[in-house]
């Protein structure tokens, strides 16, 4: 059974994660304090939800670099709605954020699956467009924490059953992840995404509605980023058009690739993506705990993505070798 565990794609990741936590603990025992645990946990939900959508797109051999801008535009618009209509229920706001995100994702999907634009070009263009629109709708002004409803901030402070660890936002992310796992495993659309990424022409010959299902992947990616926009408002309180969601696409793609989803599409697991997010979260908090300046963050992320790519490459070669021997 242990053997089987080690054959899994996630095994090396788990080992790296354990090693990292051990090293950081040895250097700074304070790392496992409730406060630091809470900051890892608070950092995760946004990333998990965006990464799950990004994973769906990458499964189909696509890429969505506009998620950071979708998060920004949807978060900005929802925060403005909550400011201007204080009686707005926050669950309705969550629906609104998801809906805005899904709509923006549908534009991506339409350009890619409908008009045949390459994913990198379409989403690079909408990255710019949505980012600019965030400034247009907000006139460059930020929404402050006192303008947002109290119970929205509570999502990031309190948890269910009177426990504050983990807070509601983490539960939201975990529920979304579980739902996504079921969707990928049992739904027609989920299976089709794997088929499309594995071999687009083959999938089409087998009767998979490639364009429709590709479109759906981008809508889902947008919806996830949209919901994350509201969680951003809950987590940070203030929503500033210049900073919300900036560069988030890099983190999301990193988490997906580190989690073992093949960049060539067709393979990947939710467990892997969750571990990828966790690894980035632990690195983020570890840098702070070890008193390493925040300036190191970007370089460390870049190096970790490269390492993950090389691991993925090695795993792919091993797999090919194994297949040839049989």
């Amino acid at each position, binding site marked *: 059974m242990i053997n089987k565990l080690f054959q899994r794609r996630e095994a090396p990741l788990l080992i790296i994660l354990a090693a990292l936590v051990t090293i950081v603990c040895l250097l700074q025992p304070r790392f496992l304090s409730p406060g630091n645990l809470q900051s890892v946990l608070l950092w995760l939900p946004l990333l998990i939800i965006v990464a799950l959508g990004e994973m769906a797109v990458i499964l189909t051999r696509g890429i969505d670099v506009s998620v950071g801008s979708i998060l920004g535009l949807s978060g900005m618009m929802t925060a403005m709605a909550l400011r201007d209509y204080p009686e707005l229920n926050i669950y309705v706001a969550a629906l609104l954020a998801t809906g805005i995100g899904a709509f923006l994702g549908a534009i991506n999907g339409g350009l890619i699956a409908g008009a045949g634009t390459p994913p990198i070009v379409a989403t690079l*263009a909408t990255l710019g467009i949505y980012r600019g629109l965030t400034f247009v709708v907000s006139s460059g002004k930020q929404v402050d924490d006192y303008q947002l409803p109290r119970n929205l901030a509570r999502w990031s402070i309190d948890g269910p059953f009177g426990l504050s660890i983990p807070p509601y936002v983490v539960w939201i992310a975990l529920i979304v992840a579980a739902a996504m796992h079921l969707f990928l495993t049992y739904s027609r659309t989920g299976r089709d995404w794997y088929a499309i990424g594995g071999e687009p022409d083959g999938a089409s010959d087998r009767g998979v509605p490639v364009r429709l299902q590709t479109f759906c992947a981008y809508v889902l990616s947008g919806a996830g980023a949209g919901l994350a926009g509201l969680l951003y408002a809950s987590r940070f309180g203030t929503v500033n058009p210049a900073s919300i969601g900036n560069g988030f696409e890099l983190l999301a793609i990193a988490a997906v690739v580190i989690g073992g989803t093949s960049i060539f599409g067709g393979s990947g697991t939710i467990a892997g993506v969750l571990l990828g997010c966790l690894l980035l979260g632990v690195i983020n908090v570890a840098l702070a705990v070890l008193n390493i300046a925040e*300036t190191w963050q970007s370089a460390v992320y*870049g190096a970790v*993505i490269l390492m993950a790519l090389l691991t993925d*490459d090695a795993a792919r070669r091993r797999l090919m070798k194994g297949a040839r021997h049989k």
Partner: protein
Amino acid sequence: MISSRIRRLWNAYAPEIVVTILLILAFVISGWREPRFLDAAYLFDRSTLYTEIGLLTLSMTLIIVAGHIDLSVTSIIAFVGAIIATLYSRYGIPFWLLIPLAPVFGGFLGAVNGYFVARRNLPSLVVTLATMALYRGMAQILLGDSSLMTPPDYTGIERVTLPHTYLHTPLVIWITLCLVFAALLHRTVFGRYITVTGVNPEAALYSGVPVAQTLIRLFTLSGAMAGVCSVLLLSRLGVARYDHARGWELDVITAVVLGGTSIFGGRGTIYGSVVAFLLITIVQTGMGVAGVKAEIQVTAIGLLLLLAVLLSRLTTGRK
């Protein structure tokens, strides 16, 4: 007879023709709304602001014709600038010695990209996305949030013009390199290799094209160009900062795709990229004159990129 010739020209160069017409239109409209656009001195003066993007457009054209992409160039600019400024102000190495080293540093960083893409068969999109973060991060480690000064007498070299003309130094460099790159892509074996690799890398490999070697050289060239941009930018701004050139990759890729280079590789001309770059420059200068904020200008550039791709799908989709 003549009409069939025009048709053949249109079939082969539709995107270049479209973008040339758009450039003329943009020029006429801007000149009519803002007479300053008809003043050569003003135009050449503004042009120095965009030289770096114009230079990156040239090397990015080759990369995209080969069927790849390089998102890390803007980070290479920042990183090379950071290295040079650090070596100069913290270690006292003479600045004139560092200037020729900039393309070397940049070329090395580009070769790292090339190694991952060509030897490890990893997609250039993800590799350069990773090195984009890595190089930018290393610039940030070197400089933090502070700015390092370059020697005062180096600042403003870009303001020097050729005697008796309005041509500033960067513009002269850019025009020269336009010709060099056009020759490289359209008149050399290396250019042929690039094109064939973009059309079909496997077929190219089986036809005896050294695909991996070509790609490594290409990414090295791309990095070296970013190094050149870095010294020009240092002269223009007078300081090195880690966030220099951030986000320019959108402008650069827009110019290349707008100029008719196929994002799938195998087709593209330097002429198209140059005209498209001029078009973007005019649109951006126009928006700047009209008081549109930089944050909102990205929306227009994004729309322009979409328009370019959709147009090229329409014109080439008829086959």
